[in-house]
């Protein structure tokens, strides 16, 4: 074989390691890791630090695997949306088949290893989460109904429940409340995003609420869900995972979040376009802080309980 027969151009699929890592949606993974970590530490059962570390790692890998399967299935719509066009598959760095193989392999790995390291309830919940995100949300609902975000949000809400189950081996009111917190937070978070990236979803023909029911209706939906979320978030302060610090954080952030939702509700498209959706973008940024601060406060309350500071 002569040198001339060796291919010297970069083939499709000659990806760097970082391209494969990008398939796992690292930014989404931070949310998964953090909420699972809080669920694990808020549980009233002590877990060996190394097993706890492994549990979080396997939950993160499972979340990443579902991200890879999501990118495999959604490569066609990712290619037409500006926000997602640079993802590894539409950018031509990784092939769809590679993403599928990585997604399936990491799913199986994470479920089996979480089961072996902790218990099979936690592993079952992780398996259900991957199934829910990939099959129920990505393959079925995302392109079918404008309620895609509401129902699909459940997949992102499972990690604290899995963390809790990894430590205790069961499901409790507290872990369901943490699930509900993320579940109710997801719709206003994504609908605010949909308001200022409208053209993307239009081009991809994804039936976002903004596309199917109009932007006025989306603003109403954001307000209604934010009110329901505020009731849930503040109510959680009076349960076993709440406490004075959580309640203080919840009161401040929910007041700000309600104000943001009210401002979005009062605006029309002319006002939004005049300041380039400043209020909607501010609400979206606040929503990120909102979730991290609530779970951070739950973590602090769990630490206080362990140390017996207020005992």
């Amino acid at each position, binding site marked *: 074989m002569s*040198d*001339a027969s*060796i291919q*010297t151009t*970069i083939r499709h699929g*000659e*990806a*760097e*390691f*970082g391209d*494969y*890592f990008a398939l796992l949606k690292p930014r989404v993974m931070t949310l998964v890791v953090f909420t699972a970590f809080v669920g694990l530490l808020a549980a009233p059962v002590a877990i*060996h630090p*190394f*097993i706890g570390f*492994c549990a979080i*790692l396997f939950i993160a890998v499972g979340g990443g695997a579902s991200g890879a399967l999501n990118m495999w299935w959604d490569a066609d719509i990712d290619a037409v949306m500006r926000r997602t066009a640079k993802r590894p598959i539409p950018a031509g760095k990784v092939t769809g088949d590679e993403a599928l193989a990585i997604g399936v392999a990491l799913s199986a790995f994470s479920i089996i*290893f979480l089961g*072996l*390291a902790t218990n099979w309830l936690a592993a079952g919940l992780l398996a259900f989460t991957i199934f829910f995100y990939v099959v129920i949300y990505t393959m079925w609902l995302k392109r079918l109904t404008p309620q895609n975000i509401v129902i699909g949000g459940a997949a992102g809400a499972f990690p604290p429940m899995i963390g809790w189950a990894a430590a205790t081996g069961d499901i409790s009111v507290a872990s369901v409340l943490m699930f509900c917190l993320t579940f109710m937070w997801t719709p206003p978070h994504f609908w605010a995003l949909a308001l200022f990236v409208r053209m993307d979803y239009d081009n991809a023909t994804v039936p976002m609420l903004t596309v199917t029911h109009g932007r006025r209706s989306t603003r109403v939906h954001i307000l209604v869900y934010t009110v329901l979320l505020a009731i849930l978030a503040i109510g959680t302060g009076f349960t076993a995972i709440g406490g004075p610090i959580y309640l203080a954080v919840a009161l401040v952030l929910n007041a700000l979040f309600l104000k943001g939702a009210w401002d979005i509700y009062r605006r029309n498209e002319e006002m939004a376009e005049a300041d380039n959706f400043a209020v909607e973008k501010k609400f979206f940024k606040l929503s990120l802080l909102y979730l991290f601060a609530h779970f951070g406060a739950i973590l602090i309350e769990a630490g206080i309980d362990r140390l017996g500071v207020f005992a």
Partner: protein
Amino acid sequence: MSLSRQHELHKRRAGRNKGVGIVLAALIAIVFGLTVVKVSSDNFTMQSANEVNNGN
């Protein structure tokens, strides 16, 4: 057209191989660590020779 030593293709493959190597080393460390923790936990019990022979 010949392949130079510093071709982009080599860099990508080298980076990928390094990444896979690190992942495999981490996997070995995790399995080893988990085994040590599980075996040294209070709940861990070995089957006696009689139990093994009786098929329990």
